[in-house]
C-alpha cells in the first residue's frame, strides 16, 4: 500500500494537497518542518505553568475543563454496569449541584459503545470509542478497519484511533498516512455523515519532539479531526510540552490550510491544577477559537472528581473531600 499515491484530504485546496503524492514528497515535507528545541519548548511550558488562576477565572476554567472531559474507562474488567454508571456520572457529575456542566464524551472500548449510547440517550454527550487495535495498534489493517466500522455501526460519535508507531519510527510515513485515511473512510456512516476521528500518536513512544511535530502534521494532512497525545496505557502520557507543541501545530496548520483541528491530551492529567495549566496553554497559544469542547478535550478519568471537589470548594468556601464525590 506504500506505493499508492494519496491526496491529503486534510489540506484540500491549500497547496499542501500533493505532499502525500509519494513517500518521498511526504518525507521531504515532514522533515522540512521547523525543528523543535527541547530546552526552549520545555521552558515555555513551564513558564505557562506558573500562571496563577484565581476566583472568577478559576470558576470559569473548572467548568470549562469539566465540559471538555472525555470521561474514560478502558479496562479489561469494564462491565456494562460500570459503563452505565459512568454515563450517569457524565450527565450529572455532581448530584449535589445541578449547575455543574456535563462532560463532553464518554470514552469506551468498541464493545461498550451500544451500552453507552443507550445510557446517554437524550443528551448531547458524545460516545467516543477507541479502535484500530487500541492501544498497541498491532493488527492488520483489515482488522483495524473492521474494529472501526464496528464501533461506528454501534453508534460511536467519535473514533480514537492509534497510529502504527512501528511504521512511523521506521520512516514509513506514507503507510501511516494511508492508514489514517482508510480509518477516516471507515468512520463514514451509511447516511453520509462521519464519526469524528481522533488520531492518537502515543507521544511517549515517539521519543523526540521533532517526531511529535511530524506526526501532528501527518495526521492533520490525512484528515484527522483531532490529534491526541496518548492512550494512557504506557509509562509516559500527556505532558505539557508535548501538548504545547501540538497546540502550535494545529495553529500553524490552520494558518496554512484554513482547517481547524482539535487537540486532546490524555493520560496522567489528574488534578485541577494540571487541567488549569493545559487551559492556560490553550488560551495563550490559540485563544478563544479553541476554548471549547469542540476543539479541546481532556482524556481523563480521575480528573473529574478533583475538579468537582475544587468546584464545591469555590461555591461553598469549604473543602469537602473524596467522600462527597461519587466513585464510578
Amino acid at each position: 500500500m506504500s506505493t499508492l499515491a494519496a491526496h491529503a484530504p486534510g489540506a484540500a485546496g491549500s497547496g499542501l494537497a500533493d505532499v502525500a503524492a509519494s513517500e518521498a514528497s511526504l518525507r521531504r515535507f515532514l522533515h522540512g518542518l521547523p525543528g523543535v528545541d527541547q530546552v526552549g519548548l520545555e521552558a515555555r511550558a513551564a513558564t505557562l505553568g506558573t500562571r496563577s488562576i484565581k476566583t472568577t477565572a478559576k470558576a470559569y476554567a473548572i467548568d470549562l475543563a469539566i465540559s471538555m472531559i472525555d470521561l474514560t474507562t478502558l479496562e479489561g474488567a469494564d462491565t456494562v454496569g460500570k459503563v452505565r454508571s459512568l454515563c450517569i456520572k457524565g450527565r450529572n457529575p455532581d448530584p449535589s449541584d445541578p449547575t455543574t456542566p456535563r462532560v463532553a464524551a464518554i470514552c469506551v472500548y468498541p464493545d461498550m459503545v451500544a451500552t453507552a449510547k443507550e445510557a446517554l440517550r437524550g443528551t448531547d454527550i458524545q460516545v467516543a470509542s477507541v479502535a484500530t487495535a487500541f492501544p498497541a495498534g498491532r493488527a492488520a489493517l483489515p482488522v483495524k478497519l473492521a474494529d472501526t466500522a464496528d464501533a461506528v455501526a454501534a453508534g460511536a460519535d467519535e473514533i480514537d484511533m492509534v497510529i502504527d508507531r512501528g511504521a512511523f519510527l521506521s520512516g514509513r510515513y506514507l503507510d501511516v498516512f494511508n492508514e489514517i485515511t482508510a480509518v477516516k473512510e471507515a468512520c463514514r456512516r451509511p447516511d453520509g455523515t462521519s464519526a469524528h476521528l481522533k488520531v492518537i500518536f502515543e507521544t511517549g513512544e515517539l521519543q523526540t519532539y521533532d517526531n511529535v511535530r511530524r506526526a501532528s502534521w501527518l495526521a492533520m494532512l490525512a484528515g484527522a479531526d483531532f490529534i491526541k497525545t496518548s492512550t494512557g496505557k504506557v509509562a509516559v502520557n500527556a505532558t505539557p510540552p508535548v501538548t504545547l507543541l501540538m497546540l502550535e501545530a494545529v495553529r500553524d496548520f490552520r494558518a496554512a490550510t484554513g482547517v481547524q483541528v482539535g487537540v486532546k491530551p490524555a493520560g496522567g492529567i489528574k488534578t485541577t491544577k494540571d487541567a488549569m495549566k493545559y487551559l492556560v496553554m490553550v488560551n495563550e497559544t490559540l485563544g478563544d477559537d479553541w476554548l471549547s469542547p469542540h476543539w479541546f478535550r481532556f482524556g481523563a478519568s480521575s480528573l473529574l472528581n478533583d475538579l468537582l471537589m475544587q468546584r464545591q470548594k469555590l461555591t461553598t468556601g469549604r473543602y469537602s473531600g473524596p467522600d462527597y464525590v461519587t466513585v464510578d
Partner: protein
Amino acid sequence: MAKNTKKTDAPVAQAPRGGLFTYAPAPESPAAAGDIATSYGHFIGGEFVDSSGSEALKTVNPATEQVLAEFAQGTGEDVDRAVAAARRAFADWSALPGSERAKYLFRIARIVQERSRELAVLESIDNGKPIRETRDFDVPMVAAWFFYYAGWADKLDYAGYGPNPKPVGVAAQVIPWNFPLMMLAWKIAPALATGNTVVLKPAETTPLTALRFAEICRQAGLPKGVVNIVTGDGRTGAALTAHPDVDKVAFTGSTPVGRSIARQLAGTRTKLSLELGGKAANIVFDDAPIDQAVEGIVNGIFFNQGHVCCAGSRLLVQESVQDEFLEALKRRMSTLRVGDPLDKNTDIGAINSSAQLSRITELTDAGEAEGAERWSPSCDLPGTGYWFRPTLFTGVSQAHRIAREEIFGPVLSVLTFRTPAEAVEKANNTPYGLSAGIWTEKGSRILWTASRLKAGVVWANTFNKFDPASPFGGYKESGYGREGGRHGLEPYLNVEARDV
C-alpha cells in the same frame, strides 16, 4: 536589508488575547515585603547609622509613583567611615580559614532562601519588575550565587592562581538598578569568599533590598564591617570609587560612568572591573526552531522590561524567513501581559524611573523620525506609574540610533541579513560586545558563528540564561573583567603577590 519597507499592513494573526478566559487579578500581598521604614541611614560597621549630612533621597514604587521610603544621600564623610570600617574588618576576615568564611556565605544563602518571598516582593515594589521574575529568577539566583562562592572559599588553592592566593583588601562596589539584589550578590559573594571586605553602593532608585540585605548580614552573624552599605546617587558613587583607601573597584552600569571611573583610576594601584552596556544581536538563521526562537527573542528583549545590559535588543533575522518570523513574533508579543508588577501573571512590569522612561521615549521617537516602522500590540496601560508598551521596529538600518544606542527598555530593533557572513558583520558592528544569541538547528553553524562574534557571552538556541558557574562579562566598550565562575574570583584576588 529591507529599505523603507512598504507598509503592507497585512493583518497580524491577532492576539490569542480573547475574552473567554481572562485571568482574575492574582496579586501578591505588598505586606509580604515586611516593614519598610520611613527613612534609612547607612549600614556601616555592622550598625544602621545616620548620615553625616542632612540630604535625603526618596525611592518610589514605579508602578504607583508612591514614595516608599527616604534614604540618605551618602557624603564623603559617610564613605570615609564605611571604608574605614571595611579596612578595620579586613585583617580578621581575611585571616579566617576559607572554610569559616564559607559558613557565613552558606548561612546568608540559606537566609535568602528562607526570606525569599519577602525579598521578591520588596524587589518588585522598589524596582517595578514583575513578581514572577523576582520570585523565579532574581532571588533564586541570589541564593545560588552565595552557595556557589561559599563552595570556593576553602578551595582557592585550586583556582589556578597558585597556592594560598591573597585577597585584594577593601572592595568598592557600585551596582545598577536593573537587578538590585542579584547585582549585589554577584559583587559581594565572590569578594567575601576570597577574603575581601566591601563597601557597596546600591542605585539611587532601588536601595531597599540592599538595606534589607544588611539585616540578613546581621542575622547571619557576619562580623561587623565585612559588608558596609552606603546609599546615595552618583556623587556618593564617585566618592566611593575615588576613595584612596579602596583596593578594588567593581562597577556595573552605564558605559559613560564606567569610562569616567576608568579615567579616575588610571595610573593608581586600584584594581578595576567594569560591566557596562550592550547592544546584543540575536541572530535567527532560516533553519532555526521558529517557536523557540520567538520565545528566546521575547525573553531576550522583554525580560525585566528590557532593563538588561545583555538584552537581545537587535534582532538579526535571515531574509528568507523574516515574514514568517515577524508574524509569529508579533502574535507572541500580543499575549504579553503588561501591568501590576505584583500580579503573579504579569509578564512586563513598570519602567524603573521617569528618567528611564524619558530616555526610552526619546530613542523610540528618534527611531520613528529616522524612518523605522514602529509596532506595538494593543494593551491597556495603568493610569499612574511609568509604563512602556513592548515595541518592535522594522525597517531598521545599521545607521539608525535605535540600532546603535542602548535603549535599556522593551524595544526591539529588527534588521535582516542574507548570508552568515553578513550576520556576523552586522552583529559585530557596534561599540559594545557583551552578549549575542544564535538560533539555528545546525551545530556547525553555531560554532562557526560563535567563534566570529565579538561578545563576552554567546548563547545558542537560548538567551538570558545565567548560572553562577558561568563567567559573564564584555568585549570592547561593554567592559572588562569577568563575574561568575572561577574567572569571577580573579578580580578579588591579588594574583601578582603570591606565597612561595
